[in-house]
């Protein structure tokens, strides 16, 4: 005990030891009560104790979760302790139920398969992980969830029978559904178009029923849709359901709740007050999309990228994955996935109606959008290509006007124009390569290198390369920054510098006096550094965000 950062036993022993004990004890209590805010506060207040506090966390998890207190008619001294509990102690008694097996864990609860003794039927019991570890807010959310769900009966909704607690352990009992969940089915295969439509009609009707009772599901995803023996959907887990008229209390913290891939943009933006029935319609569309294509509309490796895509990106057209997906179904799907809530179906019922129209081969309500909208969608879907084409088009226009006005010699004009055309064509090829997952990484490098190369060739053609066209190099670096990859930016900067070096060496007369060329090169390097550094910071934030999940 004389080592480390602790004071020698004799010096000012009692007082500092006591404050340390007080801090440790307080932290221990906070761990046990699951009070995350207090934990964070204590960590902040005692920066010197961070390692010890981490040790306490480890001990707490080693001690295990003190969950169910057993019915202890026979427990003469055998108080079944926290450490005894493991997910495999089955069967065991719990009130009037007998727990058979653990079937799943969600954000705030464990779900058990159980047998209800008095009514002789199987049920699913959902419990808060531990009454000790749950904050009051968790408990309230749990009861809200149960109460909201308890009043509902619908063919395609998992019914809730009872809410209660046994020995301080809160639970509710629901119909037991063997499953599998839609997520498990989708992991194997996609749905044929008509079956997907039928399945989605039933699901949408169930969601509409929820909406009519003032409940927004808020966490619709394939994992929350179970499939019964007849292949029909059963919507479950209203864990985040919010009753319209008692809202606000739970969402004030503004935390994002939900699964990014299936979340509506307004929900992803953390704007809880505007999460409405239309947000569920979006989630339904995202699920339909996955049923047809086998992947959610947006799914990136890290959640931040997924969020950015949900907010700004445009999903790849379902028919790009599978040509056999009918146009009408694709339109219906895309209408659900509109970024702006008012452009989606007004209700889940409207979605179901339109799907029925599709099945009857009637014209569907979802219409293809007009040309301006399609252009905007394209720009969101393939920003790298569209921005390059835009820039090239502008250049072509300027060059052409200048030609008409000045009347250059024809071969020169032809050379410049064909080079620009080739540039445009390579952009299409690269965009196609970028869409192939296995080529994407290489493509980004190749694309940037090609841009710099073509630009250099162009500059070598023209009469005065030292002119305003030199703005092209910084633009190539900035464009590389749009991909958010530090290594790509470093590569592009170096490549651009080399290209500029060759240009300056070939046409030395253009870069007189010498220091102009040097200054230009330095500015390029600085620009690359600044953009690279910004991207690096965004990456760090993104990792931080990910570790917080």
């Amino acid at each position, binding site marked *: *005990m004389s*080592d*480390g950062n*602790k004071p020698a036993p004799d010096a000012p022993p009692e007082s500092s*030891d006591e404050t*340390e*004990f007080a801090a*440790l*004890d307080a932290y*221990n209590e906070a761990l*046990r009560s699951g009070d995350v805010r207090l934990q964070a506060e204590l960590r902040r207040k005692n920066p010197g104790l961070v*390692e*010890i506090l*981490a*040790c*306490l966390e*480890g*001990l*707490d*998890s*080693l*001690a295990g979760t*003190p969950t169910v207190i057993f019915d202890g008619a*026979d427990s003469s*001294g*055998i*108080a079944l*302790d*926290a*450490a*005894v509990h*493991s*997910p*495999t*102690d*089955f069967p*065991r008694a719990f009130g009037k139920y007998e727990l058979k*097996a*653990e*079937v*799943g*864990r*969600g*954000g705030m609860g464990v*779900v058990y398969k159980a047998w209800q003794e008095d009514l002789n039927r199987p049920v699913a019991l959902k419990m808060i992980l531990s009454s000790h570890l749950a904050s009051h807010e968790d408990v309230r959310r749990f009861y809200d969830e149960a109460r909201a769900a308890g009043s509902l009966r619908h063919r395609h909704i998992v019914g809730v029978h009872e809410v209660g607690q046994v020995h301080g352990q809160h639970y509710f009992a629901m119909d037991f559904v063997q*499953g*599998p*969940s839609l*997520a*498990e089915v989708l992991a194997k295969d996609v749905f044929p178009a008509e079956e997907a439509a039928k399945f989605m009609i039933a699901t949408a009707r169930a969601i509409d029923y929820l909406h009519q009772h003032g409940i927004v599901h808020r*966490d619709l*995803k394939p*994992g*929350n849709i*179970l499939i019964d023996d007849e292949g029909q959907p059963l919507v*479950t*887990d209203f864990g985040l359901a919010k009753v319209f008229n008692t809202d606000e209390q739970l969402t004030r913290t503004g935390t994002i709740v939900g*699964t990014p891939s299936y979340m509506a943009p307004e929900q992803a933006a953390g704007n809880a007050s505007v999460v409405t029935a239309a947000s569920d319609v979006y989630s339904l569309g995202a699920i339909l999309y996955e049923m047809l294509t086998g992947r959610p509309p947006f799914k990136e490796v890290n959640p931040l990228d997924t969020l950015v895509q949900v907010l700004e990106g445009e999903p790849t057209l379902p028919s790009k994955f599978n040509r056999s997906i009918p146009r009408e179904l694709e339109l219906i799907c895309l209408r659900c996935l509109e970024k702006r809530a008012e452009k989606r179906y007004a209700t889940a019922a409207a979605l179901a109606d339109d799907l029925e129209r599709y099945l009857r081969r009637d014209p569907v309500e979802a219409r293809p959008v007009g040309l301006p909208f399609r252009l905007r969608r394209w720009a969101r879907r393939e920003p790298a290509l569209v921005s390059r084409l835009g820039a090239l088009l502008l250049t072509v226009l300027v060059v052409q006007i200048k030609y008409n006005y000045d009347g250059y010699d024809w071969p020169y004009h032809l050379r410049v124009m064909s080079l620009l055309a080739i540039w445009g064509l390579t952009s299409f090829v690269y965009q196609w390569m970028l869409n192939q997952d296995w080529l994407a990484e290489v493509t980004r490098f190749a694309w940037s290198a090609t841009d710099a190369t073509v630009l250099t060739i162009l500059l070598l053609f023209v009469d005065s390369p030292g002119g305003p066209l030199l703005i092209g190099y910084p633009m190539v670096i900035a464009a590389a920054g749009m991909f958010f990859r530090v290594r790509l930016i470093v590569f592009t900067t170096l490549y651009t510098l080399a290209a500029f070096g060759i240009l300056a060496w070939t046409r030395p007369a253009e870069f007189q006096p010498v220091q102009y060329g040097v200054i230009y090169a330095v500015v390029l390097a600085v620009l690359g550094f600044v953009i690279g550094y910004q991207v690096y910071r965004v990456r760090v934030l993104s990792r931080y965000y990910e570790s917080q*999940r």
Partner: protein
Amino acid sequence: MTENGSPLVELLDRARGGDQAARDELFDKCRNYLAIMARVQVESWLRVKVDASDLVQQTMLDAYRGLSNFRGNSEGEWLAWLKQILKHNATDFVRQYRGTEKRQQRREVSMHATAPNLSETFTREPSSGGESPSELVIQREREIQLADCITKLAADHQEVIILRSLQRLPFDEVAERMGRSRPAVQMLWARAVSKLKDVYGELP
């Protein structure tokens, strides 16, 4: 299905593939964890200090023999399985210790009967959403390491950590069991945790 290729899972796979060295290493790694768990469990039932090394031995032996019955493939399942066997043996141990055979049978769970059930339980996860498996793995690893570190502490430090942090007894009861005053036990606990931090920090 091996998640994240963690070292313990890798070891587990090799052990099940018949690699004798891996088997020994695996059990070696978990010995201290089991020793601590055994003490926590038995002492919380009997409310006295006991020598649980026989119990640990028996449990290791059972697990060693029954390795082919284990069907899980994550650290969590592995530790849960060990704890289940431990619990099974601990009931016997406590029964013997008390000299009573009257304890009712209902809580006893056959290892063989539960093994398939176990895997079934863990392969299905209908309502799970966004929990990160790597986080769980790190936590399990840390639990095993912490248990290792606890066994390296002085005896009274071990005891106070087991009573206070792992059995979660109130300080008054810890004081009573250890035959010391409450303030003394509190200080002892704070020092023990601090020492544990040092030992844990020295891990490679």
